[in-house]
């Protein structure tokens, strides 16, 4: 088997895929579900319900507010308790809709059968129709970044899409939600990919999977043997292969130029495998995005597992279902250990981008003491964007923002490979992100003049 991979840098974190062979269970309904209005990139959604309103599973509760935005649907049936503010996974307070759960009554239009709907049975689906249904269903990227999906399918006039690349890499340690989804819903994912290919008017689809998931590679290869349009691409294991730009490089061998260029500038549209499944459900089953696959895991968690979770379920419910927080010092992550956000409260709800709740305990929860930079150059060697992390971190710390911009800080994808590898345990990425934030706002201010 020929393995592909990206060409610059990369690291090899320990896998910790504890839950790979545990079939997905439906998580219990919460007592109250919490829906942050800004759970996607772009403008927060605008509420269309008020206190006391009755809602069903799949009822629109907040509409898209502008072009780069996405609507939000209730994942539970019950009564709107209040529209308030609450802390989300980023640690900031933001507006939320809280719904008290009563029963489990679904909107009528949603097809809850598990029967597979094929493309052939639905000739009425045009590209425009598919994109419209994806937009209405509130689908955003489900790998973590939560960028509205329909926008990716409408490239700017200067770029032409040539292929869809499905991101089934799951290079973050611990997380197995995408893997379980592939093992349990491979056929639906392939229909979802066909829908996306039709929507983007392209003839070619790739699914990139790392070699540590041989069963998924085998299963999808079997299902696509007679399909000349879809290619399964086995990838060598290397973090951050699930980064959009790294994946495009690995699969079709093209490197996306520096920002503001995006993958479609080299002909590729990348979609996470969870997103592809959501597209299938939205288009074929009329089911808006309100539930997702989430892994709850950690070396010290008693019963780690994979769950089909209604969005809005607080972290504490899912952790309790897995045996509760371990004794000792705990760090709870929304996401995996490389790019996940550590939450400050377990009241934080699962949102569209929550692929995992990872609990790190004791020694794993703490950073190691910082030592002086020994200028070993290992951060430069592993940077997948070809940057010089040691230099960017120093320039940030000394506030040399002009030089920082010249050194291409905006290309940083925050993958953390530099800090992961630093022998002196230096907070390289902390510093870079601080400086990058300043440089980004300077560029924005300059462009507005």
């Amino acid at each position, binding site marked *: 088997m020929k393995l592909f991979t990206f060409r*610059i840098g990369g*690291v*090899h*974190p320990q896998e910790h895929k504890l839950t790979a062979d545990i079939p997905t269970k439906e998580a219990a309904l919460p007592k109250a579900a919490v829906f942050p209005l800004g759970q996607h990139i772009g403008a927060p959604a605008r509420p269309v319900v008020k206190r006391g309103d009755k809602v069903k599973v799949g009822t629109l509760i907040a509409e898209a507010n502008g072009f780069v935005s996405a609507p939000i649907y209730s994942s539970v049936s019950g009564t709107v308790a209040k529209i308030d503010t609450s802390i989300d996974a980023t640690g900031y307070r933001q507006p939320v809709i809280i719904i008290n759960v009563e029963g489990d009554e679904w909107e009528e239009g949603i097809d809850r059968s598990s029967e597979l709907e094929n493309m052939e049975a639905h000739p009425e689906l045009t590209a425009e129709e598919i994109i419209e249904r994806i937009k209405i269903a509130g689908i955003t990227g489900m790998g973590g970044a939560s960028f509205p999906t329909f926008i990716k399918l409408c490239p700017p006039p200067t770029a032409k899409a040539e292929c869809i690349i499905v991101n089934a890499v799951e290079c973050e340690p611990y997380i197995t939600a995408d893997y379980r989804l592939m093992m349990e819903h491979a056929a639906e994912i392939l229909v979802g990919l066909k829908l996306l290919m039709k929507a983007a008017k392209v003839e070619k689809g790739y699914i990139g999977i790392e070699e540590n998931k041989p069963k998924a590679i085998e299963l999808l290869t079997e299902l696509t043997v007679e399909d000349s349009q879809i290619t399964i691409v086995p990838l060598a294991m290397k973090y951050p292969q699930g980064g959009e*730009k790294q994946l495009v*490089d690995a699969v*079709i*061998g*093209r*490197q996306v130029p*520096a920002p503001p260029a995006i993958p479609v500038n*080299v002909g590729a549209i990348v979609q996470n495998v969870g997103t592809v499944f959501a597209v299938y459900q939205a288009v074929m089953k009329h089911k808006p995005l309100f539930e997702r696959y989430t892994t709850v895991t950690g070396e010290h968690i008693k019963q780690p597992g994979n769950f089909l979770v209604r969005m809005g379920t607080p972290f504490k419910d899912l952790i309790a279902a897995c045996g509760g927080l371990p004794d000792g*010092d*705990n*760090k*709870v*992550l929304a*996401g995996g*250990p*490389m*790019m*996940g956000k*550590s939450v*400050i*409260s377990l009241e934080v709800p699962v949102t569209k981008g929550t692929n995992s709740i990872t609990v790190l305990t004791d020694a*794993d*929860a*703490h*950073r*190691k*003491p910082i*030592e*002086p*930079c*020994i*200028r*070993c*150059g*290992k951060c*430069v060697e592993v*940077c997948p*964007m*070809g*940057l*010089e992390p*040691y*230099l960017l971190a120093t320039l940030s710390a000394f506030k040399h923002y002009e030089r920082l911009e010249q050194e*291409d800080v905006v*290309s940083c994808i*925050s993958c*953390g*490979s530099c*800090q*992961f*590898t*630093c*022998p*002196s345990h230096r*907070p390289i*990425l902390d510093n870079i992100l601080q400086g990058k934030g300043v440089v980004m706002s300077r560029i924005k201010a300059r462009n507005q003049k």
Partner: protein
Amino acid sequence: MIKIIMGNLIVSLSPHAHGTESVEKNMFGVVIALLPAVLISLFYFGLGSAVVLLSSVAACMFLEWAISKYILKRRPTLSDGSAIVTGLLLGMNLPSNLPVWIILIGALMAIGVGKMSFGGLGNNPFNPALVGRCILLVSFPAQMTSWPVAGQMSSYLDAETGATPLSVMKAAIKTGNSDLLTTLPDTFHMLLGNNPLGGAGTIGEVCAIALLLGFIYLLWKKVITWHIPVTIITTVFVFSGLLHLASPVYANPFVVILSGGIMLGAIFMATDYVTSPMTHKGQIIYGIAIGFLTIVIRNWGSYPEGMSFAILIMNAFTPLINLYTKPKRFGEKLNR
């Protein structure tokens, strides 16, 4: 450990995982890689080698501890292993009959002047062990260039001394008499360090095989990459090979790369993290320049050996090299 606790949870920015790299792993990796050469030196120089290496390592560790504690007034960082590496490398660069008081001055120059005066680990522009060695070389030229004959296990200050291959090469160039070169040992003996001339060189440079074993270990443990050592050795080989072809007074390139401090310098001194360039491109430029300067100093300078000076000179250029050698940014090359 660093703890930031909110409520009952630990919080920090990503990444939340760390690999197996640490300063200690790299420093002790260098110490382990030096072990074959240390053992061979004990075999060749016996007591003298033991006294010089031990006093150098002990002095460097003591000075690092004392200066951090009493002058810089901060937590001593002996445990990172960098003082042991400096002490060992300084010792490897000295003749085995050097009096202890000179070694102490060398250690003070290496740790005190070369390293701690700039702020300690990570901040020194020059390789501390080479700062110590070169200050000794210009201050005590007689003691620093008398080389004990190998095989005197129980002698130290009283060891008999002899000529090194380097001084023979220099004499051949000065007098224009290429017949002198016939007294040089052959390549095989140079590799082993079994030197029929009697004289050898500094403690660490006598046996190329032992140093190459260390090189393999460093590559295997990913402490260093091949870029600096290979470019230095290749440059020395090509440059001295061209000279050898041009005139017989210049020695055979195989003997040149195996003699003097080329191996020790290329593998262990020039690869010092702190003082060498950060990018592979920069490391190649640095390696080529060191190789070139070494041959220039060896053949036409007043000292028989040029490796230490060449490395120190290029240490000074490292910030400039870092400024002008950028890694290839993602997206600069487009198609497979």
